[in-house]
């Protein structure tokens, strides 16, 4: 009879107390009487339990009591606490009555409770032992150990436990199976194979030690079989070599042991054995690889069989005989391969590249990156510039990692570039290792623009400023995007630096930004923006002529000076317009006459002559232009 499990909320603790009292009485009776089932009190207890069981929910085992829903069951019999302790030490966590237990089930339960602890453990715990004894009305759950690494709660089948026990004496285990098979090889193969498969299948997945012991028991028993019987068993197993359970058994044998048996296998089994060896070759230890010589052409198989089966000691002796030279010669053969001087650093580069190449797990890849950046920083701090450069190059040049990790590498690399580290590098740019340091800064440059721009802003040494600007110019040649946000900086000198860098980068994309800077409030910024635009040859003449009307003299003067350095052929009309227009100051217009004279083209000369030949000029400024044009023409004629 089975009952529906009852929840604690449905009941009072009364039935549970009644049941436990009855259980304790039955247990005490079991302990006191040789035939407890014959005692009326035992019968009464069984009946009481049967009546109460439907109303009793799951019982939690405590060290000296039973509880329901966290409340101790108020049992009266003193045997109850001993019973609870007994369950507790066997790691029973809960008891649940699935139905009324029979007298036989209770007797079996009490018998198991009376066993030595090691006997219960070897049976897989009380739960397993009770299950194996046919106690089904009462279900247990086992408590997890107080271990840091709790073991899984697994059930060990009685057959598994028995096999493990028999494995303790493999010779006896083998003899028993031989007897069961009537010493007939083919019957033994069936008995052995069936038994192995059945027991192995009963091992719980979590019972790793049980699995090991079961396989061990059969393998060691196999060793005690006569050769003829071994062959039969092996043929039986190799026929099912694709079965995982069977493979575990076969894997226990090294190749030479299987090879020793192989000459007596039937042809089909022999071919299966070879197939097994070929597939297994790639697995751990490559143990059956020794079988592979058997794969040679048919004519050589016999010899190959003999070779792999021969006594290893003799083979090793043959090996020794094949090498008549003495030990010194053998050792020196290796000695000749030894590198004279092992360069640890080079080996390290090999390792770090290898790690970058093979590490695919994101969290471990991050670790590899940290190892690499950490060592990079260490080399820089130690001012080992050559090593630092090589260490960085090992990863940055011809990257060994997968492309999708590129951004991760870059980010980590960027995070490493602290101001003090960059300062170390910048300060070292004038030293003996300048090329290496330069390379380091160049690699870092694109990712540390912000830091370098800030460093440039605060640097007092003009020499260091030059180094920084040169470095940033190189960076900007590849990519100017990181510089653009700095153009919004409120500090004029920062913006000026940027204008210098962007201009020298020669990058056409920065034209619009530099043009914007021509309107910057600070004239020093405007000067550099103008210079920059000239360098990138972005409408230089218009810019310079426009700058001649700037409010600040320095800007105008610089614009004029720059005009003198430019190739202005084709711009004569523009210059003449500027000279004759109203937007430009008198001195700048005179300067433009000089510029016009320097152009030297026929149209420039014609323009000069036109300016010089004007008859009527009313304003002094116009006269000054005419005079300047005449002077320029005269100078040209004299030269």
């Amino acid at each position, binding site marked *: 009879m089975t009952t529906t499990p009852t929840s604690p909320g449905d009941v009072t603790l009364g039935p549970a107390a009644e049941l436990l009292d009855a259980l304790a009485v039955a247990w005490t009776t079991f302990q006191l009487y040789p035939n407890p089932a014959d005692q009326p009190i035992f019968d009464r207890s069984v009946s009481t339990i049967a009546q109460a069981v439907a109303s009793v929910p799951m019982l939690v085992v405590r060290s000296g009591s039973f509880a329901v829903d966290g409340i101790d069951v108020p049992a009266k019999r003193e045997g109850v606490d001993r019973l609870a302790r007994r369950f507790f030490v066997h790691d029973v966590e809960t008891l649940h009555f699935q139905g009324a237990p029979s007298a036989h089930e209770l007797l079996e339960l009490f018998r198991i409770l009376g066993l030595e602890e090691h006997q219960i453990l070897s049976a897989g715990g009380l739960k397993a032992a009770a299950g194996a004894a046919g106690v089904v009305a009462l279900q247990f759950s086992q408590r997890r150990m*107080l271990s840091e690494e709790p073991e899984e709660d697994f059930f060990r089948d009685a057959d598994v436990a028995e096999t493990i026990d028999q494995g303790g004496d493999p010779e006896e285990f083998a003899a028993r199976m031989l007897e069961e098979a009537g010493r007939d090889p083919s019957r033994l193969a069936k008995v052995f194979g069936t038994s192995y498969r059945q027991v192995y299948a009963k091992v719980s997945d979590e019972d790793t030690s049980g699995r090991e012991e079961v396989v061990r028991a059969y393998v060691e028993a196999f060793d005690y079989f006569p050769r003829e019987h071994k062959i039969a068993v092996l043929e039986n197993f190799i026929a099912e070599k694709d079965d995982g359970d069977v493979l575990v058994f076969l894997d226990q044998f090294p190749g030479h042991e299987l090879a020793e048996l192989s000459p007596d296998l039937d042809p089909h089994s022999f071919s299966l054995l070879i197939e097994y060896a070929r597939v297994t070759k790639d697995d751990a230890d490559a143990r059956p690889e020794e079988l592979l010589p058997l794969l040679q052409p048919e004519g050589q198989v016999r010899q190959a069989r003999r070779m792999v089966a021969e006594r290893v000691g003799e083979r090793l*002796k043959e*090996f020794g005989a094949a090498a008549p030279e003495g030990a010194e010669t053998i*050792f020196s053969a290796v000695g000749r391969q030894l590198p004279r001087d092992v360069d640890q650093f080079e*080996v390290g580069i090999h*390792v770090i590249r290898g*790690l970058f190449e093979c590490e695919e797990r994101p969290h471990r890849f991050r670790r590899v990156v940290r190892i690499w950046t950490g060592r990079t920083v260490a080399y820089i701090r130690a001012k080992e510039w050559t090593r630092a450069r090589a260490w960085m190059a090992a990863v940055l040049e011809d990257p060994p990692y997968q492309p999708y990790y590129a951004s991760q590498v870059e980010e980590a690399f960027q995070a490493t570039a602290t101001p003090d580290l960059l300062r170390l590098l910048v300060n070292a740019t004038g030293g003996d290792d300048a090329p290496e340091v330069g390379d380091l800064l160049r690699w870092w440059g694109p990712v540390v623009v912000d830091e370098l721009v800030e460093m440039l802003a605060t640097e007092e040494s003009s020499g260091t400023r030059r180094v920084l600007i040169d470095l940033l110019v190189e960076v900007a040649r590849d990519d100017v995007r990181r510089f653009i946000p700095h153009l919004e900086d409120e500090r004029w000198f920062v913006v000026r630096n940027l204008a210098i860098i962007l201009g020298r980068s020669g990058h056409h994309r920065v034209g619009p930004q530099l043009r914007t800077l021509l309107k910057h409030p600070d004239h020093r910024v405007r000067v550099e923006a103008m210079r920059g635009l000239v360098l990138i040859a972005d409408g230089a003449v218009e810019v310079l002529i426009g700058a001649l009307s700037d409010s600040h003299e320095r800007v105008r003067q610089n614009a004029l000076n720059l005009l003198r350095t430019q190739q202005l052929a084709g711009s004569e009309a523009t210059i003449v317009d500027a000279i004759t227009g109203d937007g430009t100051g008198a001195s700048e217009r005179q300067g433009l006459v000089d510029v016009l004279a320097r152009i030297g083209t026929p149209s420039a000369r014609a323009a000069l002559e036109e300016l010089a030949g004007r008859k009527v000029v009313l304003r002094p400024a116009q006269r000054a232009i005419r005079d300047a044009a005449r002077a320029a023409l005269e100078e040209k004629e004299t030269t």
Partner: protein
Amino acid sequence: MNEQDVRRFLGSLRRAVRQVRLYPDGHPLTDEAVSAAETAAEAIIGADGEAALSIMDDAFYLNRSLLPHSSLEFNGLLHEMQARGIETVTLLSVVSRQDLTDLAAFIAGTTGDLPADGTVRLNERPVSRAELEAVPMSGLRKSYASSLEVLRSVTGSMATGSGFELGGVVWAVEGLLEHSLTQSSASLLLATVKSHDEYTFFHSVNVCILALTIGRLVGVDDAMLRQIGIGALLHDIGKMSVSVRILQYPGRLDQEAWKEIKLHPQEGAQAIMAAGGSGNEVAANVAFEHHARFDGTGYPTVTRSGPPHIFSRLVSVVDTYDAITTRRSYRRAETPNRALNVLLNGAGAAWDPDLVRAFIRMMGVYPAGSILQLQGGDVMVVTTQDDTDPDLVRGIRVKRAAGDFIEPEPVVVPIEHITGQLLPERSGVDPSSYLEQTESLP
């Protein structure tokens, strides 16, 4: 005195200490360990009525006798006892189970109470150095124990994510280097010590010893030997990041599990690169490449311009040898001789043929630590190969045909008198426990 009894006692005590830490009072696993300790204790006490287990200079002594192998095998327990200030444990017959439980709890640090029944007494009879057996424990064995401790510390640090210092590892390698150079035969014998519980630690120390020994023979200089040693000792450190369930899975692993296992070389290299500054790159490379094969296959898969570094190739050879000769959760152990055969088969493909030849030459046909069955059934442990005559094997006879252990005696056996090879587990012989006898051989 039989050291086997002491080993049983210490093994049970170690288990009890572990159980006391993990489980509540009265747990059956604790009781079981205590029961075993009780039985072993009575065997140790014997007819004398009492026995004193002492600790001095990182070694266990029973009464006055040094217990060299137990000191190594239970090195962790020894350190725990020292940390609790225990110098002597006197066992009086009949030893009470409660006293043994109290002793375990005291060592575990779960209580400060001493055993109260009076059958287990702590520090009651302190011993002086002069009272103890004058024979010192092999320096090699001490170095081995120290290396284990260093590895425990390193892995403990890694487990907590705190990284580790290479200083301790360097120091451990120095010790092994010093002793393996002066006692190469003994070191090869000691390198057969195994532990199923702490496989990786013992395997790593064995690989380190073997790598240092072969490295020295082929002419690697001391500075580079240190690097090889560090790499060898830490070559499997990456396994700390592999799930224990996978490492101990007693069967064929699926592809996912294999994938995880195959990550351990790169994990190890990362750990060493992160822990060590400049100067330990060779060690990191050894960890990185110890599963890379000579023919360019293996793992991890990276672009290579040639075979792995020669030091990695060297460690790969000895790593394979020790792995094959050790029982694992997923397969049986092989005899040393069989392991050499595997190497021979893979020479030129998986392993550098010159290194395999040199290694086999160093180890001999029957390497030190081989357990051989002789005509007539006696069992011997090989201690060294005979350099003058390859047809002779030198060692010590340890067991009679009837199966009883005997006082070890030196033997030189013609190779044709060998009828078979045995595995330690099957024969009950632990080759490395005969180290001290080997060292005293002429």
